[in-house]
């Protein structure tokens, strides 16, 4: 019962803030709605038993990436916003139509798979009693060591690229 109330409240907040991010006229407001959206998504992760992911979401997304966005929004200070929030030109109509088609497709897949559930995957053993963070750390440094190293290389390349792109003499 309590879980249902929590879920529906969080879902309403997530979708509401998502709509506000997309429709808000002022870009700074968009960024602030994005922070609220990320915090609600972090609470959903806690409900799903993914505490480490929730902390990462708050530290990296709400703390790091959003600050980056805020800096850029304030650096490119425009007198007038580049577009009306939702213009009614043909492009928007096509955009809404495509997004609606995507939603219909995902819904069809969900309805189809709800109607005929896949034979349960050989149920993996329940997560060991160790904490969520310890489990993820073990997985990251054993089974997923190569992807982990690749991700660190990707971040290094992104750092070099960002510094190069932001130089004055570009």
């Amino acid at each position, binding site marked *: 019962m309590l879980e249902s109330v929590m*879920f529906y409240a969080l879902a309403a907040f997530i979708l509401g803030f998502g709509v506000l991010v*997309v429709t808000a006229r002022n870009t700074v407001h968009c960024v602030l709605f994005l922070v609220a959206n990320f915090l609600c998504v972090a609470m959903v992760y806690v409900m799903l038993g993914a505490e480490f*992911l929730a902390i*990462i979401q708050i530290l990296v997304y709400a703390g790091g990436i959003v600050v980056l966005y805020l800096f*850029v929004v304030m650096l*490119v200070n425009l007198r007038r916003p*580049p577009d009306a929030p939702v213009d009614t030109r043909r492009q928007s109509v096509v955009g809404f139509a495509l*997004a609606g088609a995507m*939603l219909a497709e995902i819904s069809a897949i969900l309805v189809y798979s709800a109607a005929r559930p896949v034979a349960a995957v050989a149920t993996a053993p329940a*997560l060991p009693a160790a904490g969520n963070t310890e489990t993820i750390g073990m997985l990251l440094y054993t089974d997923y060591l190569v992807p982990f190293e690749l991700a660190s290389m990707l971040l290094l390349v992104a750092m070099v690229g960002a510094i190069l792109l932001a130089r004055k003499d570009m």
Partner: protein
Amino acid sequence: MTPITPYHYLVLSAALFTIGLVGVLVRRNIIIVFMSIELMLNAVNINLAAFSYQLHNAAGQVFAIFVVAVAAAEAAVGLGIILAFFRNKETLNMDDMDIMKW
């Protein structure tokens, strides 16, 4: 009230993904388009966490962490490109960013 199943989370994730898709397709301010992409990546992460919860397997959360790392790299490089472009053309409108179009 029915208990919350992983399907509820999948529906939530599909709705959030669609909102992000509308933002990418309809808005022309490139910073807002980038934020809509972050919304879509978050929808994917909810999906991964929901399946990780259902299957009692932490691998889904590991992949969600990889998604977060890629999103951080994408934001850093993308915003660097936006700044470099803004210095040259004084615009954030995606429709004006056609200098590489043949």
